[in-house]
């Protein structure tokens, strides 16, 4: 057993090391790969946002692509139609996203488990359809074009925003609010009995999560430099959820692993000529299933186990007695 001090330092040290690595990586990359790196940053923010509501508050959402769409369209419409600077649109996206999250979060107060999963799934499918239906506003199926930027600009902007959002999330989650979120996740009734207002904190979790998702959406349309309803198709929501679970729900470190997994694995498969681009979804899906079979609690849990020697694969909510013959 090591003493407490070095163990406590591990977190900040890894954070600094990760920040330095992320700052130095673009020096070695081509401009195209830098924008790929920027997309990893977008997924980082999106998975972080989903983690607040699913990982920390225990409310499953399959629809976070919809909140990204809200942010993405906010940025696109403000820059394309009103000539705003694209960075300046992000605080607006944050606020609009927060409002959207509260609107979805209020009815979600009455839903639990599967019902919430299905409702949010429907939101993810419905939002692109609504965008298609009002072409005067959103550009319809053809979408809107945005100003182009160099890969380096995108990389830096994305990761600086990601850093800010990460620190904000950390500040929110470490204090009173984070404790309230986690108590709701672990037992709603126990949380309510201890004076945690379920309606306030669940709505707040949805609002904060949607606000950060909207920022991720803004970044996403900047990286793509265009927006149309297909950018925010259902697949996006599914990839965010996969990233969050593969990385490990409720872990801030797992987010990075998840972001790298969902963005770089498909690209890696294509460029390594392991497979033709047609077969990438097949392999990606198979890998997701394999990861779930081998690491049901996500990669972050494996790291934690290697570090601290705790046991993995032990979750209190593993259904007992549903297996065997």
């Amino acid at each position, binding site marked *: 057993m090591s003493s407490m001090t070095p163990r406590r330092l591990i977190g900040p040290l890894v954070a600094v090391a990760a920040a330095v690595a992320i700052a130095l990586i673009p020096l070695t990359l081509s401009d195209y790969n830098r924008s790929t790196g920027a997309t990893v940053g977008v997924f980082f923010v999106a998975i972080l946002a989903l983690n607040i509501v699913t990982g920390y508050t225990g409310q499953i959402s399959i629809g976070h692509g919809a909140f990204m769409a809200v942010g993405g369209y906010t940025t696109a419409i403000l820059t394309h139609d009103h000539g705003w600077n694209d960075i300046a649109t992000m605080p607006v996206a944050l606020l609009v996203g927060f409002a959207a999250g509260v609107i979805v979060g209020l009815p979600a107060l009455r839903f639990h488990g599967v019902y919430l999963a299905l409702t949010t799934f429907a939101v993810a499918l419905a939002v692109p359809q609504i965008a298609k239906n009002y072409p005067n506003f959103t550009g319809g199926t053809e979408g809107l074009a945005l100003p182009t930027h160099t890969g380096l600009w995108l990389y830096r902007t994305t990761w600086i925003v990601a850093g800010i959002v990460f620190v904000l999330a950390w500040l929110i989650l470490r204090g009173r609010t984070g404790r309230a979120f986690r108590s709701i996740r672990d037992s709603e009734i126990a949380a309510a009995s201890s004076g945690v207002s379920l309606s306030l904190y669940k709505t707040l979790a949805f609002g904060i999560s949607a606000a950060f998702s909207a920022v991720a959406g803004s970044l996403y349309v900047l990286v793509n430099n265009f927006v149309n309803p297909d950018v925010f198709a259902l697949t996006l929501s599914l990839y965010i959820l*996969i990233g969050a679970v593969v990385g490990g729900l409720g872990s801030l470190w797992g987010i990075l692993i998840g972001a790298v997994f969902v963005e770089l694995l498909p690209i890696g498969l294509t460029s390594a000529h392991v497979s033709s681009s047609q077969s990438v979804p097949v392999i*990606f899906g198979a890998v997701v299933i394999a990861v779930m079979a081998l690491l049901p609690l996500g990669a972050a849990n494996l790291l934690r186990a290697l570090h601290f020697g705790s046991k993995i694969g032990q979750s209190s909510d593993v259904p007992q007695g549903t297996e065997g013959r």
Partner: protein
Amino acid sequence: MTRRLNTSWIVPGFLLAGCAALVFGSLRSSLFAQQTISGLANGGIYASLAVALVLIYRATEVINFAQGAIATFTTYIAWQLIDWGLGYWPAFFCTLGIAFVGGVALELIAIRPVERRGNQLTVVIASIGLLILVEGAVGYIWGNDIRFMPSPFPAHVYRVGGVAFSRQDLATIAISIASVGVLWLLFQFTKLGLAMRAAAVRPDAARLVGIRVSWMLSLGWGLAAVLGAVAGMMAAASPSVLLQPSMMDGILIYAFAAAVLGGLESAAGAVIGALAIGVMLNLLGSYVSWVTPQLLLPAAFVLMLVVLLVKPSGLFGRTRVRKV
């Protein structure tokens, strides 16, 4: 007790009133009658898929997000068999067999290893992985081009008192309802069905009386895949749906909405929910001018939301008491 008595008539009452309105409207206007019938046909397709979802949900409390993709895959198999020169009906029944075996195999290969160690969420993620895999496999094997699936029911129209019913619609309703009916007979009147119900309701007790519970779960996946195949083939035969890898994505959400309306645990509820959604969307689309085809999906979602807000356990679901 009085509370129960007061509310128990609401759902059947609404359904009866809805049916009465439909019959009344159909008698007044032949267009209304036609739209109602083709809405019922769409509802029949949703019903098959919704019952497939309910089947798996009852056994494992997991929503299978890959159900639509599996249905698309089996529909492509049917297309391939027909393309190789098989007649429609031989191809139809071969596909049902292949779907059954495939469903069992997927449960054994993809779901069981995850279920052994994970929780509900990991199984949901695995089913999403399966959705990406199966939809990708369709694109990989058959390409993303739109295929043409022949219909076994040549364009024919029956006229009853000025109302034209298409044979396609009537056959779709009949086949969907028949497949759900056969399944109901299986569950209600065979020993295997009894064993499957027991395995779903009380896994531990079922195991004690000698039922192979995990095998029953695999069978459930197989039967769900068969229902999905029926839904897929009926959908592909209808002129409004194109056979392409994403064919069932929209239909899956209607099936979700139907299953939720029915309370997720009730197959009969899912069928009623599916027919209601089919009819309602069709009437909305044809009578309310600002509801464009793009808005039908959000409309189904709003409908689902309203029902859930009024009755969180669905129309026919059991209310559960949650404990600390």
